[in-house]
């Protein structure tokens, strides 16, 4: 069975909500929509306090190419466009909307029947995706229209759909593939047309045999779509790992992109959103969020409107467990612990994991014993112990030479460390600083040209 060549770990899967069908969360009374919920420039608000908005109406416009539109997830009145606390307790520009009824923009097709044929030109498909404000829903939130706009001189050879969901606990992509599989495959067809390829692979780890079987059966109705079962290994859902696992090609270090090896990767939930955007004119205003945790009463997969406070999801799953220690936006490996539970669900929020008791606590770090477990676990072939040390010594130039920019922040190093060293904390800090330095350098060079 296929998998990526180097590094990786296999954390306990804990897919507690795998058998729970997608439930629709009741509409929230108030939503907060951050303007920056994607990679790139934050969107620009086009509504002001007091404006009435309909569900699906555009409320913020992309600022430039590397940005994404944002639409209202509910109908009601805009209460404020101001700085509000996000999950990390920091202030961020958000649009606050109070709900009044549920009126939709008329052009949106809300029926559930599957619309198979798509007669649009590739450029029109990409325009529709851009208009709907679709970004990568696996967590990275890279604007999808940017990914699909193949730069001149490069050619896409295959499309890869990421249904791996290697992150422990999370099951939102799994349930989407299982319950909305056919729609997703239509989405695959649309994406293939948009980038002009004949071949698409859907990579799924074999801890989801039901999804593999279901999609394999459906795929017989479609041309050029192949379901690829993959060996369970984290971080297979990483873009570069998935390309390596399926095509055997290695993406060179940054600034190279997957397109340099002829691949375009798109997440399963994103593909479903693409189907809805192109065939039903439905903007990205809702997504499936897994709410899970060992002590959560009813782990669930909830179809949630964007901007819903996370506390509402926790309530829907039976409330915050007694010994809850950390509430993580995302899964335990890549997610970020939150301090503000009233922060909203965003486009990249695939799950909320509640860790309780001892699971929530990190163990006391010891000394690095140079066992190099982190080196063998790193899927990018880096040396995490060295990078962490360099970050502590603030040797940013040396870190850049050690390819820190390749780091995908998967956390394999930290999870294998027998001394419980906070390697990822340091590596992330180093990556952030080095990226900042590179940007500053580029900005300094730009005017000279």
């Amino acid at each position, binding site marked *: 069975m296929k998998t990526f060549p180097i590094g990786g770990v296999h954390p306990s899967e804990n897919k507690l909500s795998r058998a729970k069908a997608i439930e629709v969360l009741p509409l929230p009374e108030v939503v907060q929509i951050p303007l920056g919920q994607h990679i790139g420039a934050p969107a620009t608000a086009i509504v002001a306090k007091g404006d009435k908005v309909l569900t699906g109406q555009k409320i913020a416009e992309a600022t430039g190419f590397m940005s994404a539109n944002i639409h209202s997830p509910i109908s009601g009145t805009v209460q404020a466009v101001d700085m509000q606390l996000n999950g990390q307790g*920091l202030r961020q520009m958000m649009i606050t909307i109070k709900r009044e009824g549920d009126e939709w923009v008329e052009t949106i097709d809300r029926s559930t029947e599957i619309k198979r044929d798509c007669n649009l030109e590739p450029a029109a498909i990409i325009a529709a995706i851009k208009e709907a404000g679709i970004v990568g829903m696996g967590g990275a939130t890279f604007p999808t229209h940017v990914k699909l706009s193949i730069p001149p001189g490069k050619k896409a050879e295959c499309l890869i759909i990421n249904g791996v969901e290697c992150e422990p606990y999370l099951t939102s992509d799994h349930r989407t593939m299982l319950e909305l599989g056919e729609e997703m495959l239509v989405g695959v067809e649309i994406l293939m047309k948009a980038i002009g390829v004949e071949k698409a692979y859907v990579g799924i780890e074999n801890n989801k045999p039901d999804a593999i079987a279901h999609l394999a059966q459906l795929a017989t109705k479609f041309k050029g779509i192949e379901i690829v079962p993959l060996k369970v290994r984290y971080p297979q859902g990483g873009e570069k790992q998935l390309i390596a696992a399926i095509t055997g090609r290695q993406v060179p270090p940054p600034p190279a992109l997957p397109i340099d090896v002829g691949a375009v990767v798109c997440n399963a939930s994103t593909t479903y959103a693409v189907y809805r955007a192109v065939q039903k004119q439905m903007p990205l205003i809702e997504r499936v969020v897994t709410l899970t945790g060992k002590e959560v009463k009813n782990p669930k997969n909830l179809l949630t409107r964007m901007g819903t406070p996370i506390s509402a999801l926790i309530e829907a799953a039976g409330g915050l467990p007694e010994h809850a220690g950390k509430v993580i936006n995302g899964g335990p490996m890549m997610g*970020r612990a939150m*301090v503000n539970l009233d922060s909203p669900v965003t486009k990249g929020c695939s799950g909320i994991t509640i860790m309780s008791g001892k699971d929530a606590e*990190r163990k006391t770090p010891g000394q690095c014993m140079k066992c190099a477990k982190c080196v063998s676990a790193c899927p990018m072939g880096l040396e995490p112990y060295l990078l962490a040390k360099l970050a502590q010594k603030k040797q940013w130039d040396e870190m850049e030479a050690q390819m820190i920019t390749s780091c995908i922040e998967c956390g394999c190093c930290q999870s294998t460390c027998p001394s419980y060293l*906070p390697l990822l904390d*340091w590596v*992330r800090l180093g990556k*952030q600083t080095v990226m900042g330095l590179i940007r500053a350098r580029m900005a300094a060079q730009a005017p000279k040209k």
Partner: protein
Amino acid sequence: MEVLLYTILTLCALGVLAAVILYFVAQTFKVEEDPRIDDVEKMLPGANCGGCGFAGCRGLADALVKNDDISSLFCPVGGGETMKAVATYLGKTAAEKEPQTATVRCGGTCEKRPRTNQFDGAKSCAVAASLYVGETGCAFGCLGYGDCVKVCNFDAIKINPKTGLPEIDADKCTACGACVKACPKLVIELRKKWPKNRAVYVSCVSKEKGAHVIRACKAGCVACGKCEKVCPFGAITIENHLAYIDPQKCKLCRKCVNECPTGAITLVGMDPLPKAPKPAPKAAPAAAAAAPAAAPKSVEGPATIALKASGTNPLILLNPKKAVMDSAAATSVAGNVVELKESGKNPLCLVRGKKAE
């Protein structure tokens, strides 16, 4: 025996030969270096802290000798005296800078600023700051993991376990600025060093609105503007919901300290002015008499600035005692603290006394 003799002789011969070769090599490849660099380096403190912007003292010494204009170079550790000595030796003019000391502008102690969560990541301010708001609700204040302590070469900063905040030993601090650079929240500032380590500063850097500040921290600046109004020297400005005391304009009159409703203005090395003053019947006429005499003097210098700045509050403008304070400032432009202290005794007392009448 002969063997031993030959061995010793051979070794000696080899030694002599090597010495001769080394002598000529050293002569041929000699690096000419200005001997003054060594001398200047000896004059510098030798802490190699990097406060001057160079990697070490030798770097600065090299630059001092090679550059004709050394006004941009300064050794914060040695201070003005060292620079003067170096400049005299080199026959150049050195930059003059007043002594400074690092100041921690955060008063969010464990008591005043309740912890809302616990951070179990790498114990570093830089890491915590890159991840989230911090253990308290304040996004601007000190995180308390001691990045500043780690970079201090002079053992001048310690975290006080009771308050959870760093404390600076002004006697040890050399104002090299390492802690200023290390603090990701920009809490530490280099401020003018007064005699006896006296200081008045706003110990808050939060740019949040007052209501948000007070929710997170009881000792935060809520930008009420009282200090700005009371300051006779126009030293206090409020920008981004935050008061800032300009160390160059401040004369340590301490009026602002009592005005601050949250106690965000910190006073070091001095007693605060009496808080609940009663009218002093004898002092009042004396002061009133002194006022007209002093007032003309206050037309020039900082007093005028102060009056302009405090022009938003007519009560202060009309206050005669205010003029006394101003005149004191006018005559003590050089920063004579003693004089200011004397003439400024109980100024608030009179303000209230007048008002009561």
